[in-house]
């Protein structure tokens, strides 16, 4: 059990490509932190630097109180689970689990006890005699996790461990990782490109893009208070809708105008804007699909639009609409009290109207792309 501290960590590859820029983060003891971002954002590189598989170009990495920049991976007291499992194909599951213990020259009975214990936790007792090739994807993943468990590491590193599994198994393993985490109660660093995994697993989420941290926060914070346009668009599915809007300040209050509607901002948002010293300006307005109220008839402060595509997701509909030629949006509509009559109106080309409350909007500076509401 240990904390992990990254101070101004930077990774520059030999070909001068900068993969990670000035990465600062303190991962607390027993915390579950998820690095998430699109591919090439530097999340895996950062994890591999913590593991010691990549050199750190600049900055300081501490595990516990110890600076480990130049410490070999094996001496960092970490364990890592790889995306492709990296099981040793030529030895049995038992030997795979025992591998690190044998290197440490632990006593035979200790090795056996730990292997059996890990196998029991993961429910792979009956496969101990098999070679990895004879296992399914989910079982292999369990073995890979088991190999990390037996070492009782201070820090668990996971590099997209669920990406190679099919959707159903992924959900199941995700739940198992949550249970495992509760059981092991140690520090976890988890890399994924899947925001659902990030939101469900992490105590805190680190959202990265182009080698920079874009926001660090609890799942709640990054969802409700995105720091910038990228985070707002990245977290949440379907993604947040963005509209050009005009923000007008009148003394202490603010009003917002977009696509023919005008609304007064609520007190909380007005206070934040005042605090950030925002004046009258053009802004990017963000509205999550689930926050839109969809109507079939025109209504006060509703934006008229045309339905393009209607995606049936089961419990809800995703409606792709266009407001003008170059402005589209995605709206979510629960199916639970959707009458047959209304459902029939939801065909391509039919006119719709949607509105939203001022207390759900996000506002971004079009220049810097930073949130105007972020403290």
């Amino acid at each position, binding site marked *: 059990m240990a904390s992990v501290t990254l101070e101004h960590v930077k990774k520059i590859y030999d070909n001068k490509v900068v993969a990670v820029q000035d990465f600062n983060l303190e991962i607390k003891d027993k915390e579950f932190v998820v690095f998430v971002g699109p591919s090439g954002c530097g999340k895996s590189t950062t994890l591999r630097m913590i593991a010691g598989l990549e050199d750190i170009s600049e900055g300081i990495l501490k595990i516990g109180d110890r600076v480990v920049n130049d410490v070999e*991976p094996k001496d960092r007291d970490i364990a890592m689970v790889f995306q492709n499992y990296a099981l040793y194909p030529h030895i049995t599951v038992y030997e795979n689990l025992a591998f690190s213990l044998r290197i*440490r020259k632990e006593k035979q009975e200790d090795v056996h006890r730990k292997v059996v214990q890990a196998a029991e936790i993961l429910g792979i007792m009956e496969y101990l005699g098999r070679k990895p090739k004879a296992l399914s994807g989910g079982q292999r993943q369990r073995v890979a996790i088991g190999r990390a468990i037996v070492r009782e590491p201070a820090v668990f590193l996971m590099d997209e461990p669920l990406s190679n599994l099919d959707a159903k198994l992924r959900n199941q393993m995700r739940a198992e990782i949550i249970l495992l985490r509760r059981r092991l109660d140690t520090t976890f660093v988890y890399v994924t490109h899947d925001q659902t995994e990030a939101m469900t697993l992490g105590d805190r989420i680190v959202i990265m893009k182009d080698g920079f941290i874009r926001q660090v926060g609890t799942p709640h914070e990054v969802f409700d208070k995105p720091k910038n346009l990228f985070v707002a668009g990245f977290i949440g599915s379907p993604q947040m809708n963005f509209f050009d809007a005009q923000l007008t300040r009148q003394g202490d209050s603010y009003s917002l105008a977009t696509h023919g509607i005008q609304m007064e901002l609520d007190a909380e948002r007005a206070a934040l804007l005042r605090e950030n010293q925002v004046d009258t300006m053009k802004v990017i307005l963000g509205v999550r699909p689930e926050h839109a109220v969809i109507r079939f008839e025109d209504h006060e402060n509703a934006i008229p639009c045309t339905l393009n595509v209607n995606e049936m997701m089961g419990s809800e509909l995703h409606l792709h609409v266009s407001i003008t030629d170059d402005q589209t949006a995605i709206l979510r509509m629960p199916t639970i009290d959707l009458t047959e009559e209304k459902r029939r109106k939801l065909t391509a080309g039919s006119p719709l109207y949607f509105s939203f409350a001022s207390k759900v909007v996000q506002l971004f500076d079009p220049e810097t792309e930073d949130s105007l509401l972020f403290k």
Partner: protein
Amino acid sequence: MAKEDRIPEVDIVVDHKAGVIREVHPPHKLRSRKGHERRVNASIYVVLTIISIIWLAPFVFLVLQSFRSYITENGGMVSYLIPKQFSLDNYRFLFQPESQYLRWYTNTLIIALFCAVIQTIMVLSVSYVLSRMRFRGRRFIMNMILVLGMFPGFLTMIALYFLLKQLGLTQQGAIPGLILIYVASSGMGYYISKGFFDTIPKSLDESARIDGATRFYVFKRIIMPLSKPIVIYTILMGFMGPWGDYVFASYVAFGKSESYNVAVGLFRWMNTRDLQGYFTRFCAGGVLVAIPITILFFILQRYYVEGVTGGAVKG
């Protein structure tokens, strides 16, 4: 007309992996097509048979000659192929001390075994390093070796001879001298095994290193067991090179018959002694040389093919 109108036969196969249903067209079952295929096959087999006869003829010739007695029949070249009487006189001669054949055979075996071992270690470690480690000049070294490999080894013959002579590794010292020559540049043959190692996921190394293994431990315990075909291929190559070499062996051991290998010794018989008298014994010597290699190949054939093709996947 009827032919065109018929519905094509289609089998439907569910590809679970890709999650799609594929249509598989069965091969046409038209009679004329089958006949055509048969004719093509027949001609291919005829050609192959002819080629293999041409290829095997010298071996058959060699084996047959080796059974013609040099005492009772004729030890030289004759105008007939099958000996009048099969005898083992030639082989008996080889096993007499005066022939020195056993000595040469032992020399060859020692050289080949040493080379096989040392060369395998060198080739595999160079390949592993070039496949796994990233260091300054890696590309340069690889390209350099490629370019150097274009020059035939004989170019260095004279220089090598004088170098070895300085070290006392010619004539009497020819055996260690030859081992040195064969082994010296062996790391340059990293190509196929590096290609093979490249196909083993790097994350295995990384995982093992996090598990506490040193680089050498990873090499020994993870990479080697996974590379059996390429290890066997490398051993075979390391053994065969010196086993059949004539060029280097002939000048390094020059004039010192105790240091000859089989190829040089046998050729000396033809060259300096009596061609008419020694030809059948030469043939018997040749047969004995071929035996161990043949056996090795029969046993390891499967790995050999895997090694060559496995390494070729990613080069």
